[in-house]
């Protein structure tokens, strides 16, 4: 009887995660299908849901796009590695929220007035740049989107590696499943499906973030046990600059001020401002974003990383170098490891498994909600700003929609390829790919380069076309040199002159440890201002038209 009972319990236990997961995936496909049925089949509907999105869906889709598996796996992973200092990085979220109000409501107003779909539509229309600026903006979009899609696919891989440790190719299979399902439902439904699924995924994601924090505190015997354990953490885990010494004050401050800004100016978020129904939609979205998302981050998911350090102590070698506990495969796996090995033990098999399943679904939701938005935006970017302008201007709307879908497929495949090859231990880029937060910081270093020209177009209106192109190009090049990809790339290419440049950059970085986005922004803004003083200004008529359209 006991054996039979155990077998029944085991069968119920093992079927809970599968049932939760399958239900979630079916609902996603269903929403994709519903979005397709509601769609009008034209481009504006596919990319912007006919500009009629209300505040509820808008705020949820903006949040879901901003917070990806970066939040659910990457952030606790970084707290697990560095300690409390990374919890302070949560305060980049309010900066992003206020930027949504300041920039987003103006972008929406101009976009609605002039019928823009992509970032380049607005910026190139203002500066009158038909080719150079448009291509630069597409490059910036690409450099943001691909790493962010890679983060999500990596999350699928990390999740599968912990859940199916006996399966040799679990990482690869997890990444492929996330890429496949996401690409399918965006290709079917467009913006409406993406926004609707984002809304559902955002609810899962925010509850997952809070739930994970609560689960971690309970797993450590309640609040007293939790705080006692935190008191035992190494001093470096409880102070600046963290365990590896990376988070020195200038780095912390520059990341908090500009990382969120990069997310706010990314292609998918920009398109969400266009698709908002009215100004109030953006304002409410900004408020919810500031309060709810920062809270979920600071009071929820960050506790997982801190508790994780107590449950799975980090390994310090004699030189002070840090590595994860052998029980944790990689830093980014800490939440999944806690959820798999601690929750069922502490909360009982069924409740623990149910909670773990909900968290698994939340991780998948966070991955998919960001991957879908970014892929969808990239489809719009390449189709409208490259294919339609330079390759086949005579293409029909239907043809352009299909090209957009093919771009989504190609970008998913490319990101998957990079993730799979970068995950090999012998890869030159294994360091670059190690942490999700690192990939995220790489992406925002580029999207934030649009800040000077966005401020110019929406507020100042003094910049010129040549200056905008020169500033943006300078910003992108400088930002790239200060990212974590530059060194491995130089090593891989092997030119000696580039090696000297890389050494110089390394020396400057060590002297002033600020984020790559600022290393790009400063020359970007200087070039924009200086070159604007001696090049042909934008016509008075266009400046007045934009001032009127901004309407503030």
């Amino acid at each position: 009887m006991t054996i039979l009972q155990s077998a029944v319990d085991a069968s119920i236990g093992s079927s809970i995660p599968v049932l939760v997961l399958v239900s979630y995936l079916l609902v996603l496909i269903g929403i994709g299908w519903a979005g397709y049925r509601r769609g009008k089949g034209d481009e504006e509907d596919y990319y912007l849901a006919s500009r009629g999105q209300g505040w509820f869906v808008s705020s949820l889709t903006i949040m879901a796009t901003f917070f990806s598996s970066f939040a659910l796996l990457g952030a606790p992973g970084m707290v697990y590695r560095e300690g409390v200092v990374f919890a302070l990085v949560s305060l980049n979220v309010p900066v992003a929220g206020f930027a949504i109000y300041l920039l987003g409501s103006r972008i929406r107003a101009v976009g609605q007035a002039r019928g823009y779909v992509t970032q380049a539509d607005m910026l190139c229309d203002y500066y009158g740049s038909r080719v150079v600026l448009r291509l630069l903006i597409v490059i910036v979009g690409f450099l943001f989107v691909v790493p962010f899609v890679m983060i999500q696919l990596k999350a699928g891989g990390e999740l599968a590696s912990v859940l199916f440790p006996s399966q040799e190719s679990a990482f690869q299979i997890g990444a492929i499943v996330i890429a496949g399902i996401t690409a399918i439902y965006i290709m079917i439904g467009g913006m409406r499906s993406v926004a609707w699924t984002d809304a559902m995924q955002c609810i899962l994601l925010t509850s997952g973030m809070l739930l994970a924090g609560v689960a971690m505190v309970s797993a450590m015997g309640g609040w007293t046990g939790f705080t006692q354990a935190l008191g035992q953490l190494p001093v470096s885990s409880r102070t600046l600059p963290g365990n590896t010494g990376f988070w020195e004050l200038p780095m912390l401050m520059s990341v908090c001020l500009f990382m969120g800004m990069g997310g706010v100016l990314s292609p998918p978020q920009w398109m969400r401002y266009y698709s908002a129904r009215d100004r109030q939609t953006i304002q409410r979205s900004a408020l919810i974003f500031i309060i709810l998302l920062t809270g979920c981050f600071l009071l929820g998911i960050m506790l997982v990383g801190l508790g994780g350090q107590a449950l799975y102590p980090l390994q310090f070698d004699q030189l002070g170098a840090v590595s994860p506990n052998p029980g944790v495969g990689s830093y980014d796996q800490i939440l999944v490891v806690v959820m798999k090995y601690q929750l069922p033990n502490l909360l009982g098999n069924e409740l623990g498994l149910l909670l773990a399943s909900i968290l698994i679904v939340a991780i998948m939701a966070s991955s998919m909600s960001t991957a879908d938005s970014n892929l969808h935006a990239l489809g719009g970017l390449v189709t409208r700003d490259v294919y339609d302008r330079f390759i086949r201007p005579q293409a029909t709307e239907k043809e352009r929609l299909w090209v957009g879908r093919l771009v989504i497929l190609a970008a998913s495949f490319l990101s998957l390829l990079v993730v799979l090859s970068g995950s090999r231990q012998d890869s030159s880029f294994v360091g670059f790919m190690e942490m999700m937060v690192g990939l995220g910081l790489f992406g925002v270093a580029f999207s934030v380069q649009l800040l000077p020209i966005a401020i110019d177009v929406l507020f100042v209106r003094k910049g010129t076309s040549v200056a905008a192109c020169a500033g943006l190009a300078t910003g992108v090049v400088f930002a790239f040199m200060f990212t974590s990809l530059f060194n491995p790339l130089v090593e891989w290419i092997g030119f000696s002159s580039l090696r000297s440049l890389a050494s110089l950059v390394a020396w400057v970085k060590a002297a002033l440890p600020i984020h790559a986005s600022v290393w790009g922004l400063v020359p970007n803004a200087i070039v924009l201002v200086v070159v604007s003083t001696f090049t042909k200004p934008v016509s008075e008529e266009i400046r007045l038209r934009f001032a009127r359209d901004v309407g503030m």
Partner: protein
Amino acid sequence: MKMKSILRTRLGWVLTTAFAFVMFMAVGPGVLLVNRPDTFLGLPLLYAWGVFWYLVIVVIALAAYRFVWSDDRNSKRVT
């Protein structure tokens, strides 16, 4: 109406300055005031510091939404 607009602009500047101060204290040089391995209510001091400034930000955001952004909506309707 004009008086209300002036008050709204002033409040906007006050809230902007307050937010800049919060960022300076929470993730800028102000954080060095609490950069030691102490605890506050059982939590690492640095973490409690972040939570405190988050609560201040919530107040600033609510005030901005209620008094500055809402006027922005009303004035838009009037025009």
